[in-house]
């Protein structure tokens, strides 16, 4: 509608980004699945209010790294994480950090839309309820509405809040999952190939949403689509065989990468 103001916002955000503090810092992160080592001393920082894209061929460790950021790897048997990851100043693998609290601060959206087989309302309200974020029903209604608004889903579902969330289309389900993640007011949102199960139109909507969410949240997204990484992210990190190959501004990454492997991957020579 008003391109001027939008680009102004962009500019302000980019400005904010360039001198942004590092929201999450990963230092010498290594992950082992039993004897097998999946990540090799990865040093990767996530900037605040920035979309960071993790790219790389299948099995390169990008999802593994993503799942380290909210300790989802804890649920995998035999998985061991070494190194240090901090959120603001807190070491998230510290004994004193409660993983429940961590996951409230670092939300996650998965590859396949996975709404609970409950109503749309219950899908959104579940997180705030278990974290005690609302005092009463009116409060909760407000959280639900705000989350759906932010996820751009309110208009489509406001008349059917009490119908099952699994009855929505794939794209709507994925945005419902994003709304569900937003509802607990996280600081960082991790997205693991959020569009890989969606059609191009639904993908466009989700990408647009990611773009808007950037103003309030720090986003880390794993994607297989180079175009998507180029479209939605400001920073891009390239993984290969469990190692971080290169991390750079997205523009630079896709035009003039420092590393030959990045160049080859982006050109489609392997992967």
């Amino acid at each position, binding site marked *: 509608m008003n391109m001027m103001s939008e680009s102004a916002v962009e500019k302000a955000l980019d400005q904010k980004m360039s001198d942004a503090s590092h929201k999450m810092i990963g230092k010498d992160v290594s992950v082992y699945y039993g004897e097998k080592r999946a990540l090799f001393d990865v040093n990767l920082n996530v900037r605040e209010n920035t979309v960071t894209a993790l790219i790389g061929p299948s099995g390169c460790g990008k999802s593994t790294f993503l799942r380290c950021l909210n300790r*989802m790897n804890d649920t995998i048997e035999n998985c061991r994480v070494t190194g240090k990851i901090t959120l603001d100043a807190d070491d998230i693998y510290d004994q004193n950090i409660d993983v429940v609290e961590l*996951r409230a601060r670092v*939300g996650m959206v998965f590859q396949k839309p*996975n709404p*609970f087989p409950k109503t749309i309302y219950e899908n959104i309200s579940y997180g705030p309820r*278990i974290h005690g974020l609302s005092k009463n029903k009116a409060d909760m209604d407000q959280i639900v509405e705000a989350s759906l608004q932010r996820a751009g889903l309110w208009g489509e579902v406001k008349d059917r809040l009490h119908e099952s969330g699994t009855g929505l289309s794939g794209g709507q389900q994925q945005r419902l999952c994003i709304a569900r993640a937003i509802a607990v007011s996280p600081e960082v949102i991790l997205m693991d190939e959020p569009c890989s199960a969606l059609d191009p139109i639904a993908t466009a909507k989700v990408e647009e949403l990611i773009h808007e969410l950037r103003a309030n949240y720090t986003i880390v997204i794993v994607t297989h689509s180079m175009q998507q990484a180029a479209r939605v992210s400001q920073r891009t990190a390239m993984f290969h065989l469990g190692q971080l190959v290169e991390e750079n501004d997205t523009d630079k990454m896709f035009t003039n990468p420092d590393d030959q492997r990045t160049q080859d991957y982006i050109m489609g020579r392997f992967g």
Partner: protein
Amino acid sequence: MTDVVSPAAGIPRAKSVRRDIGIKRRYAAERRFRAYGIAALSFGIIFLMLLLWSVVSKGYTAFQQTMITMPVEFSQQIIDPQNERATNPQKLMTANYPVVARNALAKLLNVSVDDRVASRAIGQMLSDGVRVQLRDLVVANPAIIGTTQTVRLLASGDIDSAYKGQIDLDVGQENRKINDQQLGWMKQLSDSGALAKHFNSGIFVNGASSRPEAAGVGVALIGSFYMMLIVLVLSLPIGVAASIYLEEFAPKNKFTDLIEVNINNLAAVPSIVYGLLGLAVFVNFMGLPRSASFVGGLVLTLMTLPTIIIATRAALKAVPPSIRAAALGLGASKMQTIFHHVLPLAMPGILTGTIIGLAHALGETAPLLLIGMVAFVANYPTTPLDPSTALPVQIYMWANEAERAFVERTSGAIIILLLFLILMNVGAILLRRRFERRW
């Protein structure tokens, strides 16, 4: 060669070099396989029909009972000749009621009570149960002594069988339990309408009896009900809790592997072994009473647990991991994830497993024999600690009886047991549907 515009000409030739894959044979094999399937299915259905037909055709008569409706004179002469009922309450309990009934029937048939042989034959036409029937009437209302009341009395089991046409009348009367004179009387009574078949409520409420016409599954029903209740209350929570722990919390190591193997093996242990275990542990070691449905319930619980645990674990495993990931990703604890999301989704499977386990337990006989539930119990058990029997054990006991009237009762009890099983399965389906609709 010169035909440059027909590269397509090469295509039909390619077809001829294609390996013969026997398309016709493939289809034939598929048709054969389908035919085998249909044959197997028909085989099963035929046998099911045979079973049902045999049980129902033999058993439906058990729900009707031959009774004789007649005026009975409650003669003071016979019941209480010395008029001592006010001082001796035992008198009314021990009075000679069969004679009262016999005299009434003799009067109806115009036979003199002085004819000893005829009176004896008449007395045999009535069930021994009339003693209890008349006694209950008199004890409930002593004022009827000296009056004449119309009463419906049970005919004896032999008359019942004869009247239902289950006795072969071609054999000589010396080889039957019922002679020609009695048959004549039976015909006379049935022509006058005094003797007729009525709905047999006794089979549902009466306890054990050596007289088939007075025997029923009342005690067995109560015993089975207590046991089902105990099995449900014990095995569902224990089974579900064990499965949740094993499936979600327990570390995967040699020890838990061992437990898993053992649970799977326990499900296949013959039930009589559980009976021996119950006898050794619950009756002999813990000193719980014999023949009690409480002990039966405990034994059946042990027997049902593996079934429920296996079904529950399968149901928990079938919940998509994405739901767990979603809940954990939102910051739900493991407990919350399981109880808010996984368990409700697994509920239909758990319920189905539980009801299959219960139905299995309902039909189980062998372990109950060992803990003494195969007993002659005539009185209702008021608590699960009182002696009682169970439906399948009652069927087993009746099947061992010689009288013709017990044959129909055996089938009748099987029908009752099958009805309960159908009822439980319908319950399972309804519950399942209800839970599935909610999600």
